[in-house]
C-alpha cells in the first residue's frame, strides 16, 4: 500500500507520457487495457487507478492528441483511444523529454549511491 502510494506520486507527473507512449505502440487501447498493460510490464510495480487514468485520457482527448471510438462489446460500450498525428509527435517529444529527465535524475541519484558504497 505504501509502495503504491509512492509510486502514485511519481506516476502522476509521468502518466501522460506513459499513456502516449503506450498508445504509440498500439493501434488503439481502452482504459482497462492500459492499466493491465502497465501492471503486466512493470510486474505490478506501477498500478494505475482509473481515478487517475481517465481524467488524463479525457484531457489528452480535449487537447486533440487522442481520438476515441465507441464499440459495443458484451453489451457494454467500450471506448477505444488512439493517437492523432499531433498525438504521435507529442508522444515522441514527451518520451524523449522523460528519458532525459530520468537520465538527469539518475545522475542526481548516482553520486549518492556511489558515496554510500
Amino acid at each position, binding site marked *: 500500500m505504501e509502495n503504491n502510494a509512492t509510486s502514485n506520486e511519481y506516476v502522476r507527473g509521468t502518466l501522460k507520457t506513459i499513456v502516449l507512449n503506450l498508445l504509440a505502440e498500439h493501434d488503439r487501447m481502452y*482504459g*482497462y487495457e492500459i492499466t*493491465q498493460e502497465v501492471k503486466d510490464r512493470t510486474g505490478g510495480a506501477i498500478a494505475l487507478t*482509473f481515478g487517475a487514468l*481517465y*481524467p488524463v485520457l479525457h484531457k489528452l482527448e480535449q487537447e486533440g492528441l487522442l481520438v476515441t471510438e*465507441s464499440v459495443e462489446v458484451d453489451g*457494454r460500450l467500450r*471506448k477505444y483511444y488512439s493517437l492523432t498525428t499531433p498525438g504521435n509527435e507529442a508522444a515522441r517529444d514527451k518520451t524523449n523529454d522523460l528519458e532525459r529527465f530520468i537520465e538527469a535524475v539518475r545522475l542526481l541519484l548516482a553520486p549518492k549511491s556511489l558515496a554510500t558504497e
Partner: protein
Amino acid sequence: MKRLQENRLDLISKYLQASKLDPELLPEILDHLACEAEERLWDGKSFEQVFGTILDTADSQTLLNLSVDHKNLLAMEKSLNDIVFEGRNKLYGAYALRKGYSQTMQRSVLMGVTLFLLMVMLPNLYARLVPEPKASDIAYVVEAKPIDIVPEEMPKVLPKKEPAPVAKTVKSVQFVVLPDNQVEIENIPPSVEELETAQPGQETVDGVENLDIVAPPVVAAKPAASSVVGVEPLKEETFLGNVEQAPEYRGGLAAMGAFLQKNLKYPSQAAKAGIEGRVFVEFTVGSDGKVENVKSLKGIGFGCDEEAVRVVQLMRNWNPGKQAGVPVRVRFTLPIAFQLN
C-alpha cells in the same frame, strides 16, 4: 474469460448512478469496472467478494473526483451562455435560441447573400440561358459557307436599283456605216424624172404614160354617170338588227344618187378592161350620223372597189337611225353599180 451476467452489470451500473457519477463518464467507468470484475472472477473469487473490492477501489469519493475533473475539463470549453444559464431553466427556449444564435446568423447571412446575388445575377443568367438557340443558329449558318455568300451578293444588287431611277429614254436608231453595195434601199421618194412620165399614186403601176389626170376618167365617167342612177339603197341593219327608224341620207335617195353620180369616177383600168358590176360597200352610220368603218364587202376589182369606198367616205353626215326615239349606230350596206355604156 468469464462474462459478467446482465444483472450483475446492472448492479454495478446502479451503484455508479447512485454515486452521482457524470452520465457522460458512466459507460466508460462501467466497462472498466466490469473488466476488472471479470478478471477477478476468473481468478476464482465469488461475485460478492469481487463486488466488495470494486466498491473499495471505486468509492464514492473517487467517483466524485472523477466527475468534478470532467466538469472542470468541460468548463474550459463552456461558453458564456452556459455560465449565464447555470442552474436555470434551459427548456424555456431562450437557452436554445442563444445557443443556436451564431448558427442562425451564419445561415441567414448565407441565405441573404445568396438571394441578393441571385437577384443581381438573374438578368445575366437569363441572358445567358435564352440566347443559346441564337448562338447555335449563327454557328449553323457559319458552317454553311455557300449559303453565306449568296445573301451578301443580294444586298449589293438591291441598293443599286433603288437609288438610281431609270431616266426616260427612247431607243435611238443605230446607224451602221456599210459599204454601198450592202446598203438596203428602202422607200425612196420618186425622182423628178420618174414624175415627168407618171403620176404620184398609192402604188407604182406600170400604166399608160402621160395620161392626163382628168381626161381619161372624164371620158369614161360620162357614160358611167348615167348608169349610176340605178342605185338602189339596200338597207341592212346588221348592228342592231331592225331599227324602228332607219338611217337616211340627208336629202333622201335622190340626193344620194346625185352625190354619187357627181363624185364617182369610173376607174380607167376598169373602163379599159370593160369591167361592169356592183360593188357592195358596208359602213356604219353612227348615232351622230357619221359614216365610219367603210369597206367593200364584195367587189368587181380593177379599182372599182376602192373608188366606191372612197366616195362613200366622202359622204356628209346622215340622219342617224333611231330606236325608241334614241339615235343609235346602224350597220348599213350600199350596193353601187358600175356600168359602161
